[in-house]
């Protein structure tokens, strides 16, 4: 029997919703191995515990909080040894977090400390040590087997339903943190992209623009469609590389992986590495002036045309629809 330890992210006293699929993954892993699930939050004094109440409603066996002034900003150097220590104390056979930039930075460092084999971006739990994951820009689904006592994993957010609150509250415990050592690393600053739109990885509708949008200001029109639909805005690598939009909007193998109910791709050709990030979407609509664009091969609905013509019409038609629904 091996227990499961999931590391959660939080901000402003709330759990990040990105962490909820990892809790579901943790429940599945605990079920396969017959162990219990522990959720761990780390942060400065009062910060992690503020979000612990939310975590305690997710049906885990226990919620642990590790707090220290030196943990205010996430650093893999300071967080990894604490997680590894807790994993040892709890007899964890699986240690995981969602594969956000936080999880991807942190979990492999923990794996080294626990001598653990690692499953990156797990998409399914098949057995206590058997998992599924995607490789090669989503063109290969691999079954992987881990032979070490401890399995470290990052969890693909789009493949596990977010854990829902309910049932009895889990007990909340504290982890004693005597000292932290950043090993010569320090957090300097965060230049956060501000947006009123839903988060790209959590939105039900995503509207993305590609290189064909030509310049940053034209993305205002992509944004207008996204806003009208209550969706998030995304972009292709080409558009991000060209500086039209910030990097954190990039959808693809090397950006964010999304799987919304509806993905609308505008003036976006659909390079393999982009398709890797969105072809799990339930419905895909594409507008592109090139009838041979690869995006049409994965689109449920394709419209050949220019964005200059299509977007104003799209906005008008959606407005009509919304008016009729009222």
């Amino acid at each position: 029997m091996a227990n499961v330890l999931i590391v959660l992210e939080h901000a402003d006293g709330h759990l990040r919703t990105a962490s909820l699929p990892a809790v579901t993954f943790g429940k599945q892993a605990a079920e396969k191995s017959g162990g219990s699930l522990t959720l761990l939050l780390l942060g400065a004094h009062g910060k992690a515990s503020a979000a612990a109440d939310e975590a305690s409603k997710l049906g885990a066996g226990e919620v642990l909080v590790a707090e220290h002034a030196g943990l205010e900003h996430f650093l893999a150097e300071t967080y990894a040894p604490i997680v590894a220590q807790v994993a040892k104390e709890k007899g964890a056979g699986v240690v995981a977090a969602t594969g956000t930039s936080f999880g991807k930075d942190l979990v492999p460092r923990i794996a080294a400390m626990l001598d653990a084999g690692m499953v990156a971006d797990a998409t399914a739990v098949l057995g206590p040590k058997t998992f599924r994951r995607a490789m090669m820009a989503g063109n290969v689904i691999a079954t992987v087997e881990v032979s070490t006592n401890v399995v470290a994993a990052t969890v693909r957010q789009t493949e596990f339903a977010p854990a829902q609150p309910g049932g009895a509250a889990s007990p909340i415990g504290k982890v004693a943190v005597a000292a932290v050592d950043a090993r010569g690393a320090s957090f300097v600053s965060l230049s956060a992209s501000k947006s009123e739109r839903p988060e790209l990885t959590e939105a039900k509708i995503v509207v993305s623009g590609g290189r064909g949008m030509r310049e940053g200001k034209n993305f205002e029109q992509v944004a207008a469609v996204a806003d009208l639909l209550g969706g998030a805005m995304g972009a292709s690598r080409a558009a991000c590389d060209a500086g039209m939009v910030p990097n954190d909007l990039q959808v693809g193998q090397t950006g964010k992986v999304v799987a919304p109910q509806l993905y609308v791709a505008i003036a976006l050709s659909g390079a393999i590495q982009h398709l890797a990030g969105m072809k799990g979407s339930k419905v895909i609509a594409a507008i592109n002036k090139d009838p041979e664009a690869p995006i049409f091969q994965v689109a449920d609905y394709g419209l050949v045309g220019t964005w200059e013509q299509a977007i104003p019409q799209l906005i008008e038609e959606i407005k009509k629809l919304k008016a009729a629904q009222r």
Partner: protein
Amino acid sequence: MKILVTAKRVPDPEQKVKFKGNALDQSAVNWQLNQFDEYAVETALRLTEAGSGGARNAGDEVIVISIGPKDVQQQLRNTLAMGADKAVLVEGVDESLDSDIVARTLVKLVEKHKPDLVLMGKLAADSESNDVGQRLAGYLNWPQATFACTVEATDGGKALLVGREVDAGVETKKINLPAVLTVDLRVVLPNAVKGVKTGAAYQEGARYASLKGIMAAKKKPIEETTLAALGVDAAQKVKVTAVEAPPPRKAGIKVSSVQELVEKLHNEAKVI
């Protein structure tokens, strides 16, 4: 600054993936240098040279490491032609490696070469594990900066100020050397990397090898070694036991107007 850069060969991502039963059929694959690793080489060169394409700063060195079959010589030779000083080829085949073996091999090479920095692509486009750099930093207990989009030498070359592409935007992290750095796509923009002695702006993208570079590369050493010679335990922690193609998406339709598109999305797909 002495830099170890890792370079993996991967199948051309544009090529269609072929299967042979439970495994990949790679008999007709075009192998190429993993793009992120190419960017890592470019980053290392920019950190160690006086201006674009200029001479190496005195005492600085860029050593490129690959673990793979002998054929990887070709990709290594390309990095030498770009301007790296020498290369190390550790013989191994992908099927019998995993991220942990690679990380522990790098530990051995770090002990041998004593670099100030290990520079890597953030992931390999084939296995997509995105974990070797972090694991290596864990083993060495060195600071790490992953997903770098900007890199600037600071404190007289004793530390790096790194802009990291994180989910929320761009984080700036300072790491004292020695350290592990993994690079993201935007690190090859003209002003993304700044060394101690130069603030030179570069062309966009990784550089192409010049004719002079190609000639010079022929004389640069590629040291060959093995996991056994380095004393690395070759037992896999993670094994790929089966591979398959993802279920195909069902064929879509073309619509003739925006009106029809919106109508279908509303009435047929019921997503708006």
